């Protein structure tokens, strides 16, 4: 059974932008996620953080990790913090194993992710 199609929509808050992710994150998510990031950061806002909301994500595979690595590299090049919340315990473990969590902070909820500046 094929997975759920990837979705990414951007919400802008005072202290940063949130990208609400949905469905499966694999290599096919790359283009849409990059577009969402550009949308979230397009209007300037200096180096306000971008927060990835994983709470509606069912599945992330290794090609999805690569997509996140690509995004993280771009954000770091821009000096912009990338944060995450809503990861299931399993994917949180994977973010730790892959050391992604060393470069993007993992939070329990959205206020916590936005509060940190």
């Amino acid at each position: 059974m094929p997975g759920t199609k990837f979705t990414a929509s951007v919400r802008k808050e005072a202290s940063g932008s949130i990208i609400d992710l949905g469905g499966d994150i694999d290599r096919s998510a790359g283009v849409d996620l990059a577009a969402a990031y550009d949308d979230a950061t397009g209007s300037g806002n200096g180096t306000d953080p971008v927060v990835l909301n994983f709470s509606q994500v069912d599945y992330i595979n290794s090609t999805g990790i690569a997509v996140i690595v690509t995004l993280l590299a771009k954000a770091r090049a821009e000096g912009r913090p990338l944060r995450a919340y809503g990861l299931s315990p399993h994917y949180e473990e994977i973010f730790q194993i892959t050391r992604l969590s060393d470069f993007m902070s993992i939070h329990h909820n959205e206020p916590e992710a936005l509060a940190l500046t």
Partner: protein
Amino acid sequence: MALRRMRNRAVPAETVPVIPTEVIDGGAIPDNDPLFALLLATGGPVEVDRITITSPALDEIRQQGIQLIVPLISQGELIGTLSLSRRLSEQPYSTDDRKLLAGLAGQVAPAIRVAQLVRQQEAQAKERERIEQELRVAALIQQTLLPKELPQLPGWNIEAYYQSARAVGGDFYDFIPLTEGRIGLVIGDVTDKGVPAALVMATTRSTLRSIATQHDDPGKVLALANESLVPEIPPAMFVTCLYGILNPETGDLVFANAGHNLPYVRSADGVRELRARGMPLGLMPGMVYEVNSAKLDLGETVLLTSDGIVEAHSADGEMFGFDRLMELVGKDQEEEDLISQVLEELRRFRPSDLEQEDDVTMVAIRRASSALESASAFGDEPGLISTFTYPSSSGNERRAMDEVADVVAGLGMNGDRLERLKTAVSETTMNAIEHGNHGDPAKLVGVDVLASTKRILVRIRDQGTAPVPAALIPNLEAKLAGEQGPRGWGLFLIEKMVDVMRTATNDGHHTVELEMSREGD
């Protein structure tokens, strides 16, 4: 002087004592000849001329010109005679001569007896060795031809038991892989024992193997086997044999029977017999075999047996019998190990000091009532629970992941460990699709789930030939700095997710085996 030997009942004809070369071998005195009793009764030297009885042995002795017979007696048995012809001096034997000869006989007799006994024992040891050797050959033939491994059918537990009698009967059983995942089941028994039975068993086995793969009708298989075996089998021998075709997916069993013991099915309602008429193989040509079918439902067991069970005798000479076996199969449906139950009952019935009269063979085929039950029945050795195949197209790694997860969840794995195994299965299947099979949908990825009481194994097989590379720890800093591509996480993740990952490349296949302990689930 001539030494005669007696035929002594205790000494086989070919084991005569060593006779000095200067001695005439005058032939034995049969123990039913009156002379035999006379010499035994007299105990000392006897002059031939004075013997008045009529005896064929005496006539012969007279013809040879023998004058004096000195019996050699040891422990009351006449074991030979010293026979003396006329003295060179032509004078009769004196009283002193007789005393001397009697004394000599008294000393010679025990020595000859000892020599006889040694010979006798040597001969018996040789005979025993010959028999043992023959038994070893028969046992070797049988062991070589019985299946080395039991078939692994998802959702089924197959067990077999074979214990040869000392004389090695001609029992055999076999599993023949057929098309569409079906399997041919054979149990048989050759009349007679030892090497002749083992050779007939070997012929029957290979005949059935070659015919079974060409015909779907078990009656036809037995009929053709019979035609082929009639000219091959010695006239006094025949083979009883049951042949069935099991469809593991549906539980359908189609069978025919050449005079073999009926299979019994242990079911929730008790026991049922699987009847089909037919004559044993190898007796006469032109036989027809009735075909019947049965359906094995979840949790049911079919038991195939050989004569060695029902024909076992108790100390009182009572037979184990079909009724007792059938009753045993019908009770305790909760107990899954039917073979152990039968063996236990057999041990109770037949005292351990009584030698096993015939081979004892059993094959029990149980349809598991659940995946969990299949796994627990496998004990420490993982057995196949489920098997899947997928075309190599993108997205099928998710199907594999979900389908394996369903099976593994049924085995009681859950939570974090289930999630980890799912990720590992998905990643491994994706590698198989993309790297092993290069995304060619015509190439299949095979996924087997195996389980034991302790472990769960998932084997994922593709048609790749290059070895799976070792997993490297990805350099995240280099990837973030753009010095390396962002990918390369798959193998690393798989290794981290499971307890053990093994890879093997052979015969045009890659296999990656993922192992998870079941402890903690």
